[in-house]
């Protein structure tokens, strides 16, 4: 379980999809990567076509068009909703109902960038994103798309040194996920914060402070190791 907004969608098979919506920072990073890739390609194309003089200029202009408008649309539709930048940040564009993004939605959301970019540096888009509960810029709102995390395969780390120990109390699914998430994040927290969080579970672990933290890590290892 992660603390970010999760959208639960029921599929026709009766399963609930859990889509974690991506926030501003990651999306901005993905955009930055994409911009650098595009500039790089454009530079390379200009070098190559520069040889062809005037015809080359025409080709460069067409390339500029394709890189501006065609790049995001093509990647989003043909490559599972992710441009290279998004892929590197593990993001994906999907329809609001969780289905992979289609041509029309991608077309509209990318055309709306014109407005999202105003007046400078995606200001309108950023404001819209921050206000929206699901981090959508104007293009996402009009096209009914979401940018979500594409999580596959991170099923919890094994914390070195903490011997697996079964939890003393029966934990429900969400609680198990919370303990595993704590173990995943514990090294990013200050020792005081770790202890503070572990103390919340003191009645269950039967220990406080650093020992409580250690107990939780042992539990997490057991939960993770248990197939």
């Amino acid at each position, binding site marked *: 379980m992660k603390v970010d907004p999760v959208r639960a969608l029921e*599929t026709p*098979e*009766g*399963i609930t*999809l*859990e889509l974690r919506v991506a926030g501003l920072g990651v999306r901005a990073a993905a955009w930055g990567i994409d911009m650098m890739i595009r500039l790089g390609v454009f530079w390379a194309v200009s070098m190559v076509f520069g040889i062809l003089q*005037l*015809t080359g*200029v*025409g*080709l*460069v*202009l*067409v390339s*500029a*068009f394709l890189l*501006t*408008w065609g790049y995001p649309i093509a990647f989003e539709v043909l490559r*599972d909703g992710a441009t290279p930048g998004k892929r590197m940040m593990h993001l994906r564009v999907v329809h609001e109902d*969780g*289905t*992979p993004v*289609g*041509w*029309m939605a991608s*077309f*509209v959301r990318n*055309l*709306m*960038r*014109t*407005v999202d970019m*105003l007046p400078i540096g995606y200001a309108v888009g950023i404001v819209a994103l921050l206000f929206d509960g699901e981090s959508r810029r*104007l293009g996402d*709102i*009009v*096209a*009914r798309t979401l940018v979500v995390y594409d*999580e*596959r*395969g991170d*099923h*919890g780390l094994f914390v070195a040194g903490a011997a697996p120990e079964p939890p003393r109390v029966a934990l*429900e*699914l969400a609680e*198990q*996920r919370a303990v*595993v998430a704590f173990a995943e994040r514990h090294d990013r927290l200050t020792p005081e914060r770790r202890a503070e969080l572990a103390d919340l579970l003191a009645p269950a672990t039967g220990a406080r402070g650093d020992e409580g933290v250690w107990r939780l890590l042992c539990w997490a290892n057991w*939960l*993770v190791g*248990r*197939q």
Partner: protein
Amino acid sequence: MRQERFVAKHGDEWTRFDAFLGAWRRDHRAALVSLHPDAFMRRYRTLCQQLALARQRGYSSRVVDRLQDLVQGGHQVLYRGAPFTWREIGAFLAHGFPRLVRAERRAVACAAALFFVPLLAMAWLTHARPELIHSVFDAAQVASYEQMYDPARAKAGLGREQGGDAMMFGFYILNNISIGFRCFASGLLFGVAPVFLLVLNGVMIGALAGYLVANGSAVPFLSFTAGHGAPELLAIVICGAAGLRLGFALIAPGPRRRRDALVEAGRVGGALVAGGFAMLLLAAFIEAFWSASLFVPPVVKYAVGGAMWLLTLGWLALAGRR
């Protein structure tokens, strides 16, 4: 059933499905060769059942999360939109798009009025008083236009300062199509921007036309614009109509929520702009490779131009009628 037995029993299936998902990410077609769609369907449904069972029986989060991942991956594969075929695109251009334009005739009529009325008014004005051109363009631009449309001086071809056909094609693609896209998207700004863009473009084109005709460059200018005028101007109008639709959805959403009206307008507008894009592509071709030619006699160009107007208007007005 205990969790360990459950995992032991089904673990292999999960690994195989995971491998399939990995292959799918790399190459859709190859993955489907390795696993037939029917077999995929069966496995996906089985996985969904297993996920539901795992949740209900309270298995550990590790198992549940793993199944959740597999199911989400399978969902991604199963619910892909149908890929666009060329046939669908052809059908859209032949019937779908003209029908849509007719369905949105109010927006299109507004956009046409906002574009052509200023255009004709300005053309008449600058024709009567050529000095008015300087209110619209500065002296350098006016001089440049005069040179572009003077057959004695326009060496590269009419309507361009310099550059070959291919270069101008690239320019028209980048410039004109981007303008069309912006006309649409800027509708989000409460519909104000498309109004502004339509009127502004109408004024500029009209002023130029009236001035050049009064200045004696009537034949070069009209023979240049004849060929591509129809698709280009009408595409701008249609893109503007899409933008107006968007703005109108914001201002007067009618009985729907503003958000829903926006989404609907976005969809309709997107389809309109897709057709407009095709028209602008055609116009770019004609403008770059035909219109500027100094070798084709004006009469031929007028004839082609007239035919283009008839064809374009006829297509929009009549194609796809039941």
